[in-house]
């Protein structure tokens, strides 16, 4: 930062009154709110306000003069000048069009434009507000009722329709920012994000699931319990099923637009016992015909 005396344009010997006078003169010229169209004003105002914060305080000025502190960091920063809000598009209670009300009363094309603009301001529809809502995979298939907490502390109840896909946007009419006059509220636009699931994946309307089965279940077949997004069902595993065998649960997929449902496909994965089993080892070593089978026959060597 430059020398604060230089910024305010006063001598180092200036009295407190002279300093205040110099500051007020500059501040009146440069206050950002009094200079809505002047982009430079804010930078300059920050500088003079910072200089005055330092020199206007008798104690700080003494320490500055004796070299104890420097002018670094003295710039007064603040966020949000009035001008940033007053000319914004957003509706606010301080808007005043009386400065050109007489223009609007005449009969030419310019007056018509002004009238239209004033009408549009008086009856402006509220803005749409956008939100993101993460949901679980199961909720995306089965549907759910969620409550969204908004930044202002209000809540929004969102009904997730079954079968929703990631990136889909739900529009809640009238739940956005309030409008002015006859203009209604905007809408809330809620983009759905789906958290990946550890078991399920989705392709189109169909759902895929990899399901571990035991050796006896694979070899002998049986009825086993399978999770679907809408609850558990019992599924028949045919005798002689293998790793990679895909079984279909009809109608257990995501609802589609035609009014039906996709399917759930269950891919089996045969799992040996976690702990080596002596009985199984004894059986396999005595299982002569088992050796005749080469599972790598079709793999190019």
């Amino acid at each position, binding site marked *: 930062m430059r020398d604060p005396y230089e910024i305010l344009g006063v001598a180092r010997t200036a009295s407190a009154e002279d300093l205040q006078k110099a*500051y007020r003169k500059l501040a009146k010229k440069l206050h950002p709110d009094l200079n809505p169209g002047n982009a430079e004003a804010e930078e300059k105002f920050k500088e003079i306000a910072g200089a005055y914060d330092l020199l206007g305080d008798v104690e700080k000025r003494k320490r500055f003069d004796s070299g104890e502190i420097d002018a670094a960091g003295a710039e007064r920063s603040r966020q949000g000048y*009035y001008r940033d809000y007053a000319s914004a598009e957003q509706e606010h209670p301080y808007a005043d069009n009386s400065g050109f009300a007489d223009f609007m009363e005449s009969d030419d094309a310019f007056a018509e434009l002004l009238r239209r603009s004033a009408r549009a301001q008086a009856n402006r529809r509220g803005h749409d507000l956008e939100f993101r809502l993460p949901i679980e995979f199961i909720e995306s298939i089965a549907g759910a009722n969620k409550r969204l907490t908004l930044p202002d502390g209000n809540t929004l109840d969102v009904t997730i329709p079954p079968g929703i896909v990631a990136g889909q946007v739900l529009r809640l009419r009238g739940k956005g920012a309030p409008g002015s006059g006859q203009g209604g509220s905007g809408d809330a636009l809620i983009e759905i994000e789906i958290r990946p699931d550890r078991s399920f994946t989705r392709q189109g309307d169909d759902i895929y699931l990899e399901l571990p089965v035991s050796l006896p279940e694979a070899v002998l077949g049986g009825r086993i319990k399978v999770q679907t997004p809408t609850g558990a069902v019992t599924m028949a595993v045919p005798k002689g099923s293998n790793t990679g065998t895909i079984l279909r649960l009809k109608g257990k997929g995501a609802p589609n637009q035609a009014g039906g449902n996709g399917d759930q496909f269950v891919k089996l994965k045969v799992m040996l016992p976690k702990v080596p089993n002596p009985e199984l080892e004894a059986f396999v070593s005595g299982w002569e015909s088992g050796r005749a089978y080469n599972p790598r026959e079709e793999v190019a060597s």
Partner: protein
Amino acid sequence: MKINKQEFLSRSGLGHETLIAWIEEEWLIPDSSSAEMSFSDIDIARARLIRDLQSDFGVNDAGVGVILKLLDQLYGMRRTMMELRQAGRIISE
């Protein structure tokens, strides 16, 4: 974003009595559509402007009212100018 009176007072550094006086003068117009009045960012920025006018510029109460009135007209015209520019039809019509 809407804040309540308590938060407004702490963020603007205003005292309660000053706030009431400023509202009576219509220097500040909080949202009173619900039972408890609420404030937004523009009210905070406006309160700071009023304090700058009073303390930095030495403007008295009568002066503050006049300045706010003129500023609001200035900003109203700027807004309309911007809308007209956006409409982009001022020359072609």
